[in-house]
């Protein structure tokens, strides 16, 4: 039941498939008909506000909870039993055995992922070395700082050389140095062809690192795809302008639905189908422009709009 290299799909082909995954807790539907195709070698952002159903979906993938319905496949095979050994998982609720030695801890967790004991010992040493914690091999976790404990957790996630790594809300609670470290590790793993699925509600963080994203809200996927394609679907929404003189733009500019002023610049929010050329023409007529910048929509703007759209659809 293990995945041999020839069984792995090529880079960019689907490695993890979710089809119609649903899970309800009593009346509350935590995940509704979630469909995902995650390409191999991508960094896939699984995004949404708290309570959107991210963790439920991830726990369903890890078979920690059993979904009510739906199909989950890894490399084209139903995900169960020993297949889980190929997935590294760092949950939001994460910890370590406080009374256990760091080295033993890594060996134990590697063994539970199916790594033979002798191999696990070697790998644990290698990872401790890499994390700069070689001196702590025989120290109890208790004696480590929080940041060091986080490093041990990272090492435990990657030690079994998984083909897919799932990180749930991993940046919350990390210190800045470890965020940097983890980001480097993620990029390094990606270079090796490992797929990273990571969930977060911090969209700015996701924007910096993801190739593909999926937005989930109220248990439903509302946007899904490569980041640039998602962006293309959401056209320009605002421009920032400033004039040499202090100009207050008049009401009724073409295509503008709202104007706000902050720190000497104006932010003009555009309506559907706004004509930028016509707008620029009018703006230059008001005085000498010192700033005319298009604001690429940020992920949070895309997200807010998508949620608004989705809710509109649900209502109508």
């Amino acid at each position, binding site marked *: 039941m293990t995945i041999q290299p020839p069984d792995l799909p090529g880079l960019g082909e689907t490695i993890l498939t979710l089809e119609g995954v649903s899970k309800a807790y009593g009346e509350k539907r935590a995940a509704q008909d979630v469909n995902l195709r995650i390409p191999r070698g991508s960094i896939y952002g699984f995004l949404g506000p708290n309570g959107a159903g991210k963790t439920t979906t991830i*726990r369903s993938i*890890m*078979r*920690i*909870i*059993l979904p009510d319905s739906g199909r989950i496949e890894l490399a084209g095979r139903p995900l169960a039993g020993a297949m*889980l*050994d190929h*997935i590294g*998982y*760092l*949950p939001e*609720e*994460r*910890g*370590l*055995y*406080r*009374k*256990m030695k760091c080295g033993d801890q890594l060996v*134990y*967790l590697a*063994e*539970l*992922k*199916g790594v033979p004991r002798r191999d696990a010992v070697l790998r644990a040493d290698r990872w401790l070395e890499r994390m700069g914690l070689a001196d702590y091999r025989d120290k109890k976790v208790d004696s480590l700082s929080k940041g060091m404990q986080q490093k041990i957790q990272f090492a*435990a996630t990657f030690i079994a050389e998984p083909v897919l790594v799932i990180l749930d809300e991993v940046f919350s609670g990390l210190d800045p140095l470890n965020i940097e470290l983890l980001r480097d590790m993620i990029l390094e793993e990606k270079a090796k062809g490992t797929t990273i699925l990571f969930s977060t509600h911090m969209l700015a963080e996701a924007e910096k690192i993801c190739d593909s994203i999926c937005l989930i809200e109220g248990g439903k996927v509302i946007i899904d795809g490569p980041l640039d394609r998602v962006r293309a679907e959401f056209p320009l929404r605002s421009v920032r302008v400033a004039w040499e003189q202090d100009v207050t733009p008049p009401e009724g500019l073409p295509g503008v639905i709202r104007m706000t002023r902050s720190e000497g610049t104006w932010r003009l929010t555009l309506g559907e189908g706004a004509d930028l050329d016509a707008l620029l023409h009018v703006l230059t007529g008001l005085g000498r422009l010192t700033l005319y910048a298009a604001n690429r929509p940020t992920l949070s703007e895309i997200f807010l709009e998508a949620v608004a759209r989705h809710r509109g659809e649900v209502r109508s």
Partner: protein
Amino acid sequence: MSKVLTIIRKEYLERVRSKSFVIGTLLGPAFMSMFVVLPVLLATSGGDDARTIGVVDAAGGVLARIEQVFAEEERTRVTLVPFARPGASSQASVEDLKAALQVGEIDAGVVLDADFIGTGKVVFYGKSVSSMVMRDDVLRPALNRILRESRFAEAAVPDSLFNYLSARTDWTTFTVTAEGSEEQQNEEAAFIAAIALIMIIYIMVLMYGNHTLTAVIEEKSSRMVEVLLASVSPGNLMLGKVMGIGLAGLTQFGVWALAFFLISQQGVSVGSFSLDVHFLTPTILVSFVMFFLLGFFLYATLYAGIGAMCNSVQDSQQFQGPLTMGLVLPMMLLSLVLRAPDSTLSVVLSMIPLFAPVLMFMRVCIETPPLWQILLSWALLAVSIWLSARAAGKLFRMGILMYGASPTWAGLMKVLRDR
């Protein structure tokens, strides 16, 4: 399967290497032997404190006889104080005696009838329930004897006839085993050994069952459980834990058994009681191991299920209570079963899986029940282990990810009913 072994290994080593295990292994026999030796020592020492008893001997001469009897019985701790005001009526002496009793000069008082040998009448004055024990266990037998002897003497019965008439039955006890051989047994020793073994089952099941509870709660509170469940199924995680902890318990018992065997080879004895390995027949040994293991697995899975639902040991108290009762209750029922091991009530009680490790094993020790009953109780235990493991697995999957809210009985039942 190798993952289960990995978990067993970790849980086992973690326990066996801990300080509390080493200390418990060393001190365990000391505590155990206290349970066994203390009652024996107390019983042989008699346990009665020095007592002073006031006596109004209206008949005259009886007091001296009582002193004589006490001397024969080596009852040196009881002092008799005569109450007799010279020249006054015995009624006045009784008032003196009561007054002395009130101020605590004496612990109890006895007033003998003027015609004691004729009527046998005795009036007893006591202060508390404990003086009633004095009346029934010390004074009554002594005075009975004096009365009997005096009346025989009055009737001029010769000593030889008296001895002949007052002879007691003379008993020798054999136990006929299933194999047909008859053995002369030191019953007291066999009984004490049985109680010791039952205590071991009781304490070990309670202690190591509780270990699984704390182990599961620790896994939850250290937030390890979700990482683990990403690698192993809840069932295997629980199996590994329970078996690892059970093995640690067996190891501890093994050390004790070895020590016990070595000591008994030396022939150690405490008071009138000596260690009797003879009592440990193969049936009893096999039963012991079976009831220990089955009992442990039953309680451990139940405890693990409870642990999965709780976030802290405090949380678990309300659920632990009923489970602990399952072990304490049979200890209280022991004497009932002891009196009539073959009664329908005893048979039924000893079949109840929660009670079987104590009660059925007790029956095996004192009077081997029919084989089918032993096998049936094992089968019932095995079935309930299977059921409780399933229920615990369910609780594990549901409860182990529940942080925060304290569990309730209603919530527990809901999880068990849900798919």
